[in-house]
């Protein structure tokens, strides 16, 4: 894996097709057809290096961490902590002590809501979210509202599905304590102007959480540069294993947060009546963590950084442009969230066909797209629809995949007319 793709001489587009072979699942036919996997926004497929790392670790190095003084446990601990360091570098965090391993981005946001929110927010404090958010960045605030009486304000979208910035500035005030914002919409691909919004929020003293599930997988991220106070993402969307997520939080903020869950490894002393708690990040990692998940994620980060997040981003942009063009030639397609700067996600529907029927029929040809509300019902409510068809592109997709999608869409349409 030494080459970083190759340049197509004609139009200077980057080509990552040399990496497709790294993904064993893509070699397995589905319903006797080649798998055309267009659901990476839900979860990415895994390269050999990730699968083999997991396999080898269980076969040769496995042990529980942090408390054992024997060789295997010492080694496992070092590898787990090296994974933390790798994540810190990947996000350009100031220190690896700012990285907490969780089970998922969803848990990371719940941790912030419960621990930071539970301590710092009270009646009438305002949390601003947007209509672009995934349920993972909505429901935790509803749950927090029940115990604290916070007020949740939601930034509207314009007709394209972009953030209505005027509305954002209307909502933003001294009462705002937190802006919790997606780095990129999983339902539409839309990327909000996060830098502007972060600095506006900061100027009024609010903190900012960025839900990086679709952002960190698509482009290089520097939490220091964007000045996010919290940043979360999920390993399984970054070509890593399931059951591992990340919470980044600035040191001084993390230091002041009370524990979220209690148990082994997050304590200094325990009696039956009192506990004292360890420093971050361990304070937030109660119990045996997903050791192998963290180590698998570390391998995934090696994989993508070896290719280069810039290259991935460029390549995915190429696919997005091509897909948008090709689908745009079909006059019965309606797009949702059409914009130029997007994560590599196209959301659309076919006139007269329910998205679920589209999904089922495409699947007959091995074409795997997601249909429905994509855990982002407010986006659907905004457009007044029940769901969309969503094709999302990853480094292992090709223009041929898109051509096959187009064929499939044409078939669907022909069945229904």
């Amino acid at each position, binding site marked *: 894996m030494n080459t970083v793709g190759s340049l197509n001489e004609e139009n200077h587009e980057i080509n990552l097709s040399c990496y497709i072979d790294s993904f064993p699942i893509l070699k397995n036919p589905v319903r006797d057809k080649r798998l055309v996997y267009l659901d990476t926004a839900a979860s990415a497929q895994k390269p050999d290096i990730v699968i083999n790392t997991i396999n080898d670790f269980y076969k040769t190095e496995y042990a529980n961490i942090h408390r054992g003084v024997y060789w295997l446990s010492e080694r496992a601990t070092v590898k787990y902590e090296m994974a933390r360091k790798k994540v810190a570098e990947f996000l350009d965090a100031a220190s690896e002590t700012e990285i907490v391993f969780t089970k998922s981005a969803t848990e990371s946001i719940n941790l912030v809501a419960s621990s930071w929110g539970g301590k710092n927010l009270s009646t009438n404090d305002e949390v601003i979210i947007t209509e672009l958010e995934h349920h993972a960045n909505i429901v935790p605030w509803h749950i927090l509202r029940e115990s604290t009486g916070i007020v949740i304000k939601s930034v509207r979208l314009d007709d394209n599905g972009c953030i209505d910035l005027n509305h954002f500035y209307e909502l933003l005030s001294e009462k705002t304590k937190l802006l919790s914002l997606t780095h990129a919409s999983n339902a539409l691909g839309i990327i909000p102007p996060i830098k502007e919004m972060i600095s506006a929020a900061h100027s009024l003293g609010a903190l900012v959480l960025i839900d990086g599930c679709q952002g960190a997988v698509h482009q290089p991220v520097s939490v220091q540069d964007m000045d996010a106070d919290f940043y979360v993402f999920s390993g399984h969307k970054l070509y890593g294993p399931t059951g591992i997520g990340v919470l980044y939080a600035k040191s001084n903020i993390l230091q002041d947060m009370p524990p979220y869950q209690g148990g082994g490894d997050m304590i200094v002393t325990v009696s039956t009546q009192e506990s004292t708690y360890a420093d971050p990040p361990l304070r937030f990692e109660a119990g045996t963590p997903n050791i192998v998940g963290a180590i698998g994620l570390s391998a995934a980060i090696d994989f993508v950084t070896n290719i280069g997040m810039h290259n991935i981003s460029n390549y995915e942009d190429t696919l997005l442009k091509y897909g948008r063009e090709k689908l745009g030639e079909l006059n019965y397609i309606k797009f949702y969230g059409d914009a130029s700067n997007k994560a590599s996600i196209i959301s659309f529907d076919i006139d007269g066909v329910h998205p679920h*029927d589209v999904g089922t029929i495409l699947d007959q040809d091995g074409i795997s797209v997601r249909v429905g509300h994509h855990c982002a019902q407010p986006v659907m409510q905004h457009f007044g629809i029940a769901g969309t068809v969503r094709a999302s592109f990853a480094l292992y997709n090709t223009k041929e995949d898109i051509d096959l999608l187009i064929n499939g869409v044409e078939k669907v349409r022909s069945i229904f007319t």
Partner: protein
Amino acid sequence: MLDLRELYQEVILDHGKSPRNFGQLEDKNTEAHGHNPLCGDTITIYLHITDEIIKDIRFEGKGCAISLASASMMTELLKGKTTKEASKLFGKFHALVAEDKEVNNFETDNEEFEKLHVLAGVKEYPMRVKCATLPWHTFKAAVENNNGKVSTE
């Protein structure tokens, strides 16, 4: 295995595009509302039941071709049946589209029920099974509403 595209064609031609018994029922004496959280589809079943006989049945709602077709075929099948017969048919339909076991006793099916066999293809699509069964579950809820209390309408 049924090719789903065939299924789709038949369904679409026969029921999806022009569903039977679609719309409100003036003299309903019970109804129920169903919702499929997976796709946001909704359906309302209206019933007029007298002496345990389904005198009339109609439905309204939004949904995918499979749920519309299933609802349409269901209303055709159930009109005039007793609630007991309907409940038996639901069992059969459930076995047809949702249960793992090979269902062998369909040689005993009458022609009426056989029409529903076009929906058997969804069995392979656990997520879509709900689309096909939603109308039936909603029908069942409507009957139970009727049993529980006299409808006030």
